[in-house]
């Protein structure tokens, strides 16, 4: 799948109320192209509540219900239960894809109970968290997804805690499909949505969404920042199904040794939200702490990969 092979039909329309360089609208566009018209959308309170444009117009060319902050998992459950009945009664030939679209606040914090409940019941819908790592819609306050040391309006000297990892929490729920995605790798994202569409049960896709005003970088750099996040290991691309995690795209290349893991400084320095780590003087301690966390993870993954390759070599050796 190449970019030029994406379906031409636009289900996210022009004239939205998104900021310049908004990752949310770009992610919606790719997701809609992959899922197609037979999709019912629920938007949870987030920037997407606003960027879809206010009443009476809408940039969302799918039947859409806007819902309150903490409801994502539950409203998806209700929609899919109703769709089951409509299929049973013959009103739908094919069950539509139920898509719940929430931000990191609505997923990591206020909405995690409803999401966890839905996942435990394995309710049949796709839940997307587009993660801009803060409450961007209300002016950039910290969320459970905000990374360590990042500035927000209520962590003015940098967040003191490390972020939690809801994608891994969803893996722990044992649902049929969990994937992470990045705006810098749209074909990888498209493939994951297209795959998720064909799976039944709760599917969770989390997209890292670099937010120009919230993260303080020029609005033309959204994709560049997203790519740096993957190249420095601050964001990892993978999918998890049948009890197995497969790393994809840029992350896979680093693990397999086809690309180098870039120093995290390159990512941090490109954003105003980490400026206090470099000005007025370098905060070696915090920069090193961030780098160590990433390096530890990738060393383990690279080692495991090499061991696997080695074991495969042994397996095919005729002498054994």
């Amino acid at each position: 799948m190449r970019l030029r092979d994406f379906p031409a039909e636009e289900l996210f329309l022009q004239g939205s109320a998104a900021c310049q360089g908004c990752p949310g609208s770009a992610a919606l566009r790719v997701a809609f192209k992959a899922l197609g018209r037979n999709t019912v959308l629920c938007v949870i309170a987030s920037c997407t509540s606003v960027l879809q444009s206010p009443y009476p117009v809408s940039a969302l060319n799918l039947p859409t219900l806007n819902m309150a902050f903490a409801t994502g998992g539950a409203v998806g459950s209700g929609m899919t239960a109703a769709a089951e009945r409509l299929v049973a009664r013959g009103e739908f030939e094919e069950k539509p894809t139920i898509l719940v679209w929430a931000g990191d606040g609505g997923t990591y914090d206020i909405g995690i109970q409803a999401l966890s409940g839905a996942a435990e019941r394995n309710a049949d819908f796709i839940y997307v968290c587009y993660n801009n790592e803060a409450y961007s819609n209300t002016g950039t306050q910290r969320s459970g997804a905000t990374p360590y040391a990042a500035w927000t309006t209520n962590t003015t000297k940098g967040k003191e805690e490390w972020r939690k990892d809801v994608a891994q929490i969803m893996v722990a729920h044992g649902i049929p499909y969990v994937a992470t995605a990045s705006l810098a790798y749209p074909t990888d994202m498209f493939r994951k949505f297209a795959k998720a569409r064909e799976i039944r049960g709760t599917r969770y896709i989390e997209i890292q969404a670099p937010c120009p005003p919230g993260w303080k970088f020029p609005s033309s750099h959204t994709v560049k920042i997203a790519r740096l996040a993957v190249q420095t290991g601050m964001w990892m691309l993978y999918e998890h199904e049948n009890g197995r995690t497969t790393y994809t795209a840029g992350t896979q290349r680093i693990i397999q040794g086809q690309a180098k893991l870039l120093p995290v400084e390159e990512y941090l320095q490109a954003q105003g939200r980490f400026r206090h780590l470099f000005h007025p003087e370098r905060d070696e301690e915090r920069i090193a702490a961030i780098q160590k966390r990433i390096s530890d993870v990738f060393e383990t993954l690279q080692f495991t990969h090499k061991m696997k390759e080695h074991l495969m070599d042994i397996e095919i050796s005729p002498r054994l």
Partner: protein
Amino acid sequence: MRLVETGNHVAAWGARLSRVEVVSAYPITPQTQVIEEISRFIDEGEMECEYIPVESEHSAMAAMIGAAAMGVRAFSATSAHGLAYMHELLHWAAAVRLPMVMVNVNRALGPGWNIWCDHQDTMAARDTGWIQLYCADHQEILDTVIQAYRISEDPRVILPVMVCYDAFVMSHTYMQVDIPEQEAVDRFLPPFRSLWKLDLEYPFTHGSVIYPDDYEEVRFSMQQAMDNARRVIAEAAREYRDVVGGYHGELVDAYRMEDAEYALLAMGTVASECRVAVDELRESGYPCGLVRIRSYRPFPVAELRELLAPLRVALVIDRAVSFGLEGPLFSEVKAAVYGNGGPSIHGMVTGLGGRDVPYDLIVDNAVAAFKGKLLPGSHWPAVRLNDHHRLVKRSLEEYWKKEGVR
């Protein structure tokens, strides 16, 4: 078919006969039997329905909204803390204009933990845009649930309906109930209808950002829907009587009001107790009647103005309180008849947290009210200092002494 059943099981029968297709609910005492019975119906193939055992009441209501938005008849049951927990979404369900029915078993809110009856839970949900109907016996629960779908889905209304009945006094007691034939219910209640749904061929966006220029009109439409509901509730009650059988009054249920000079006003099972009190008062020479409010929202303004106009004195009994004012029903009865002459109106708050409201308490206070001996404002006739309160007070006094609290 005639059954002897609990109020909760009867509510489940109401959902079953209404051909509900999605139930989402979370267990809370004293509502649990409703959802237990529904899941039994589904397991035994007696109901074609998806049951979502959600992880909270907030999610119960969110799932109902999702289901109703897809164009399916949805049902839930809750009580007290559950209703309070889903409060945000009560507003959402009504304002996004979706029809649905939920029963609420009226229970007191903590702390301290109290599972028994009062009306504080639903009174606190008064201004959410839900229609609220209160029942006084088991047959009325069944009939009202079915009527509630008819009212909720009427194109003149399209608002959610809450069917309320008293904890334990109704939820867990057994009464004889006539279960109507499914065909009769089907004649009364057409298949699900709504003014909108999430339609793949007409991809509308619902509930997006709405500016001050447009918002007030949406809320005005809800007020108009409530006004329309007055007629629709009355029509539904009459048509149900004719098609299915069973009649419990319309917006109000009047008892011995024809020649009354005095009246008691109440909701739920206290109103049933008031019937005994009315008979007693009649024997003591007071020509008294009873006005049981069935529909609290929309409030029966015209009915109350007509019924109360010829009276000398009326006594309103509240099983809830609006802290800082008085019983909410008391306030609203006065507001409804304001400027219309009519009786002097007294109010009393009692029966909170399941405290018994015996007919003789009602009679004694009614006589005092009729003789003009009740003080104006909030009257709490059953409040007293008992041994438990004294015991705790003694312990607290020691603590206050240590802390220097005077």
